[in-house]
C-alpha cells in the first residue's frame, strides 16, 4: 500500500490576542493509505474538524508538514494553490443546511467545481452535474431548484455530488451524517460506500458516533484535546481499546439493545475535556484518568506501537 496523505507534527493554534492561544491541533502525525477509510473520533473541542480543515488548507497551519502523493503541500494556500489541489482533495461538511449557498441553484452548486477547474463548456458542465445528481440519487430535474426545497438527507447528497464531481482522490467527511435522521444516515453511508468503491476514494471520516465509525472505517484514530491517543484497526480499537480514554469512550457508547445496557457495569468518565487554551503539561488526559501516575503530569506520552497488539499505536505511559 502506498501512503496517499501524510501529516507530520501538524499543529494549528488560533491566536486569541493577549498572548493566549487555542491549541486546537498539537503535533498530530497520521498517514492515510490509498483507498483507506480512516475514522477520526473524539469529543467536541478535541480538534477533529480543525485537523480536517488544516489538512485541506482551509486553515493555515502553525507548524508541521502535510504531504499528498509524496508532495509537500503549502502551509498557507494562495488562490493558485486551491486551484491546483481542489480537484484532488475535497470536503463534505456536517451541516447540510448552512454549507450550501441558498442563492445558488443546485445545478450551479454542483457544477461550480467543474466550471472553475476544468475547461468543459457550460453545456458539458450542466450535463455532468445532471449525471452526478443521478449518481447520488437525485433527479436531473432538480438542477434548477434551490437548497431550501430539499430535505436534510437530499441536501447532504447535493454536498456529496459537489465534492465528488471533480473525482478527487481524497475527501474529508466532517460529521457527514450527524445532522441526519437515523433512517437517512444509512442512505448517505451506503452512497459514500458505493462511490468509494467506484471511484477508489480515500476518506478521512470525522465523527463522534463510535458505532458508525467502527462500521465505516478501516482504521480508527482517537483524538483528545488536539492530539492522537490511539490509532489502530477500527475493529481492534473498538473491541479491545488500550488507552484509558478510548476505553471510557467505548464504554460510554450506548448500544441499541436494552439487555446489553442492563448488563453494562458502567462508570461514566468523570470531569470534562480541559480548555485547549490552558493545555496541561504532561498527558492531556491525566486529570481525568483513573490510572494517572506522577509521570503523566510531567511528560507528554508519544504514540508508540504495541507489538503484541498488531502495531496498534497508543500514547500512554502505562505502555511505556
Amino acid at each position, binding site marked *: 500500500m502506498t501512503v496517499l496523505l501524510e501529516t507530520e507534527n501538524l499543529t494549528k493554534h488560533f491566536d486569541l490576542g493577549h498572548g493566549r492561544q487555542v491549541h486546537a491541533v498539537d503535533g498530530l502525525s497520521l498517514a492515510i493509505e490509498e483507498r483507506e477509510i480512516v475514522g477520526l473520533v473524539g*469529543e*467536541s473541542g478535541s480538534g477533529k474538524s480543525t485537523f480536517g480543515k488544516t489538512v485541506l488548507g482551509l486553515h493555515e497551519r502553525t507548524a508541521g508538514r502535510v504531504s499528498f502523493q509524496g508532495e509537500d503541500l503549502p502551509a498557507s494556500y494562495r488562490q493558485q494553490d486551491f486551484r491546483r489541489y481542489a480537484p484532488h482533495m475535497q470536503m463534505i461538511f456536517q451541516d447540510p443546511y448552512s454549507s450550501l449557498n441558498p442563492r445558488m441553484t443546485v445545478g450551479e452548486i454542483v457544477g461550480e467545481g467543474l466550471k472553475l477547474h476544468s475547461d468543459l463548456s457550460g453545456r458539458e458542465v450542466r450535463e455532468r452535474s445532471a449525471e452526478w445528481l443521478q449518481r447520488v440519487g437525485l433527479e436531473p430535474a432538480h438542477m434548477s431548484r434551490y437548497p431550501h426545497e430539499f*430535505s436534510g*438527507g437530499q441536501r447532504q447528497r447535493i454536498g456529496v455530488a459537489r465534492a465528488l464531481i471533480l473525482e478527487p482522490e481524497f475527501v474529508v467527511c466532517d460529521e457527514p451524517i450527524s445532522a441526519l*435522521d*437515523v*433512517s*437517512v*444516515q*444509512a*442512505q448517505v*453511508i*451506503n452512497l459514500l*460506500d458505493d462511490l468509494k468503491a467506484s471511484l477508489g476514494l480515500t476518506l478521512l471520516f470525522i465523527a*463522534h458516533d*463510535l*458505532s*458508525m465509525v*467502527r*462500521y465505516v472505517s478501516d482504521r480508527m484514530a482517537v483524538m483528545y484535546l488536539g492530539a492522537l491517543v490511539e490509532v489502530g484497526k477500527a475493529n481492534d480499537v*473498538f*473491541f479491545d481499546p488500550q488507552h484509558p480514554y478510548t476505553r*471510557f*469512550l467505548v*464504554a*460510554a*457508547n*450506548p*448500544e*441499541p*439493545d*436494552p*439487555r*446489553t*445496557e442492563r448488563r*453494562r457495569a*458502567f462508570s*461514566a*468518565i*468523570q470531569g*470534562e*475535556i480541559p480548555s485547549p487554551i490552558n493545555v496541561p503539561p504532561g498527558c492531556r488526559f491525566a486529570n481525568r484518568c483513573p490510572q494517572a501516575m506522577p509521570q503523566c503530569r510531567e511528560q507528554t506520552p508519544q504514540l508508540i506501537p504495541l507489538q503484541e497488539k498488531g502495531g496498534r499505536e497508543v500514547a500512554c505511559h502505562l505502555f511505556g
Partner: protein
Amino acid sequence: MSALLEVRDLEVEFDTYGGTVHAVRGVSFDVRAGKTLAIVGESGCGKSVTVQSIMGLIPIPPGRIVAGTAELRGVDILGRPEVDGRDVRGDAIGMIFQDPMTSLNPTMTIGDQIAETLQTHRGQDRPQARARAVELLEMTRIPEAEQRAGQYPFEFSGGMLQRAMIAMAIACEPAILVADEPSTALDVTIQAQILDLLGDLQAKTSMAIILITHDLGVVARLADEVAVMYAGRIVEHGTADAVFHQSGHPYTQGLKAAMPTRNSRRDDPLQPIDGSPPDLFAPPPGCAYRPRCPNAMRICERRDPPAFPLEPSDASRPSSAIDVVANTNQEDAASGSQAPTPRTPPEETDIHPAKDATAAPPHRDHFSRCWLHQSEARAHFAAAAAGDGDPP
C-alpha cells in the same frame, strides 16, 4: 399500579400559510411513577409536540388541541395551567430541553434561576431558595456548587449547563420529568454522565421520566417502556425489551436495521429506509408508513391499521384483545362502502376497547399498528379465547 399520567387520543394541529399540519393524530400512552417512557421517532414525527401540548407549551394559535385528554392523577391537565393549587409546568412536571444554552437566561446567575423556580412555585424566600439551589446543584454533581451558583450560563460548559437545567427541573420535586433530547447536543462521555444522573435521580425520587429522543442507544439505556412514533401516531409500543427484541412494526425494524450495532460487519450493508416521512399537511390515507414500507399490502393503502396486540398479555386481559379483533373485523366488512375519514379514524374505538377498571389499558401492552399483525392478532385471540367460543 395505576398510571400517574394518562394521555388519551391526543390530536394537535397547527395552522400555517401552507395549510393545516396534523402534527399529532390520536396518541395515547400511560406514564407510571418511577418508570421511564421513551418516545422515539425521527424529526417531525410529533414527539416533542405531543409532550409540549400536554404541558401547555405550544403556542395557541397557530397550534390547536383538537381532541384528547391528559389526566395527571385523575385530573385533566390539557389546557390547564394549574391543578390542585400546583402549577403544572415547572411544578408537577419538570422539563429539560435539548439545548441548555438557549433554554437558560443569559443575564441571571445559575443559582438565581434555580432559586426563582422555588420562589415562584413554592413561595420560598430568597436565602432559603438560594440555599436549596446549591443543594440541587450538588445533587446533580456540579463540583464547587456554592461558587458555581454565582456564575452565569456562559461560564458553564454544555454538560454543566445540562446539569443545571436538571437541577432546575427537579427543584420542585416534580412527579414527572420530561427530557426532550437531553443528551443530543452532548458528547458521548458527557451523555453517559447525564444519563447516569437521570437514572440515579429517578431511583432516589421515584419520579417518572418521559424521554424524547431519536437515539435508540439512549432509549436502550434508560427506558422501561418505548413508544415509537411515526407521522403523528404511536406505531409500536411495549416494554423496551419487547420493542427492541420482538419489534413488530416494519418502521421499528427499519430503524434498527439502519444503524450499525457492535455485531454488524463491514460487508453487511446497512439497510436504509428509503424515501422520507410523509407530508403532514395531508397525511396519506391508510398507513402513513406505507410508501416506505417493504411489506406494504393493498389494505395498507386503503385503511389505517389499528393497534394489534403482539403478545397475549396476562390472563386478565383477553377481553381487550377480543375487542380489537372483533371491531376490526366489523370494519373490514363495512369499509368497502366508505373511505375512512382521516379526522376521526374509525379505529379510535379499537384502541381503547374497554375503559372500565377491570380491563388493563392496552397501552401498556406490546402493540403494533400494522396490518401484518392482523393474522397474528387473530391467532392470539383464538388462543386466549379458546374457552369462550370463536370470534364473531
